[in-house]
């Protein structure tokens, strides 16, 4: 049984890679002469964009047909009193992997937190939140690789799993093999955990995703930006970093008739 589930995973992954390969008509980089276009292309860091967009549409379809209905059902029909234990169970089942990665990152503090959360919850069959005042630790292979200095690499849209990067894809593959929960309890447990986590997470962002889909001018690009920023925040463990670039007040724009405005007009004439 263990092997068959694993085989299916491997086959699915191999199929996905083949599909990706077939589709990876890479985006043609703009000519070197067009500096703006070139800079925009490099900033997006998405050479597989055509294939990624196609995969994204497929994922959005699966989301609408399967994940979203499941998430709505969970939110509206699942008894509210049973939600915390289910969600605690999923969170607690992630702690061994988080512990491993906190160790690999040399972060003893967070390793200890993950271990403490897991072991104190064991007597409750992992159903309790034993540290309600502290956020649970979520560390994974992609974050560890980032801490070790690996670059993020191009953006990748994985089938079913969604947004990723080359680095995070390696992290995900590594996590599949290294997860202590899979090694002890089997991959049925980790697969169940992943599915459960997807449904619970989706049930909490139903409104936000709908809003984003409704208001964004380019939903794919918005998701790409959100994914990268979210990952960057996770890698820093939520500690904010000085902004590379941020808007300024732009006083020169407020009254176009003052000096700033005149200068601009003079320059364009």
């Amino acid at each position, binding site marked *: 049984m263990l092997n068959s589930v694993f085989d299916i995973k491997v086959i699915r992954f191999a199929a996905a890679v083949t599909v990706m390969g077939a589709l990876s008509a890479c985006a043609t980089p703009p000519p070197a002469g067009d500096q703006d276009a070139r800079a925009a292309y490099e900033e997006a860091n998405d050479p597989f964009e055509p294939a990624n967009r196609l995969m994204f549409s497929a994922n959005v379809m699966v989301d609408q047909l399967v994940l979203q209905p499941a998430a709505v059902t969970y939110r509206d029909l699942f008894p509210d009193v049973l939600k915390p234990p289910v969600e605690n169970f999923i969170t607690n089942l992630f702690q061994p992997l988080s512990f491993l990665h906190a160790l690999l990152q040399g972060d003893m503090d967070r390793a200890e937190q993950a271990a403490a959360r897991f072991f104190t919850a064991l007597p409750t069959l992992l159903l309790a939140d034993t540290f309600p005042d502290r956020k649970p630790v979520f560390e994974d292979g992609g974050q560890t690789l980032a801490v070790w200095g690996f670059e993020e690499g191009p953006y990748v849209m994985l089938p079913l799993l969604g947004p990723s990067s080359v680095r995070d894809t390696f992290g995900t593959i590594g996590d599949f093999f290294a997860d202590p929960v899979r090694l002890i309890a089997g991959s049925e447990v980790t697969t169940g955990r992943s599915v459960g986590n997807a449904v619970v997470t989706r049930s909490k962002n139903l409104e936000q995703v709908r809003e984003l889909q409704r208001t964004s001018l380019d939903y794919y690009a918005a998701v790409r930006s959100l994914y990268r920023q979210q990952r960057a925040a996770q890698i820093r463990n939520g500690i904010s970093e000085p902004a590379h670039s941020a808007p300024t007040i732009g006083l020169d*724009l407020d009254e176009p008739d003052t000096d700033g405005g005149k200068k601009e007009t003079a320059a364009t004439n």
Partner: protein
Amino acid sequence: MRTIAAFVLVVAFSIGTSAARADSHIDTSVKFINSLSNQAIETLTDASITTEQRRAEFRRLFRDGFAVNGIARFVAGRYWRKASDADRAEYLKLFEDVIVNTWADRFSQYSGQKFEVRGATDATPEKSAEDVALVESLFFTSPTSPVRLEWRVASKGDLFKIVDVKLEGISMATTQRDEFNSVVSKNGRSLEALIEELRRRRDG
């Protein structure tokens, strides 16, 4: 000896005043965010006003509290530089309209969730003409799991403006800029493409 003492005094004094000045822009930024959020809750969440009234009120607060044009220029990215004056003016207007239409209506759903400022730090970049403070706050969408909101407040003299909002570490300005960049780079690579897209969004 006396010169050294005088020098030390001058240095101490200048450190003292610059620290005091830095502190004052941080404190004022916190007050600014508190007052703006109180005004927003007071005026925008009133269930008896019409959508039009709410949007007009939101537009007033948005202009008052946010560096609308500075943000608009930032999110237009590299295409701002090459755009004509007429296009820039049109874009700034549309940008504001779209933000107002998108965000104003959300306040009608507000039902007394707690908003709490937790503190602020200085984030003034080197060689900046403006002081910058990051104001940390929590918005309690549920009593146990609040959303972390970080307000980037730029100031110059007595003028205080929000230039960015980070939601759980995700910058609204950066997200918008990345998205706009993608739209523009796919359609003619000029601000005009964005203007067209924004007009469709506002009118559609």
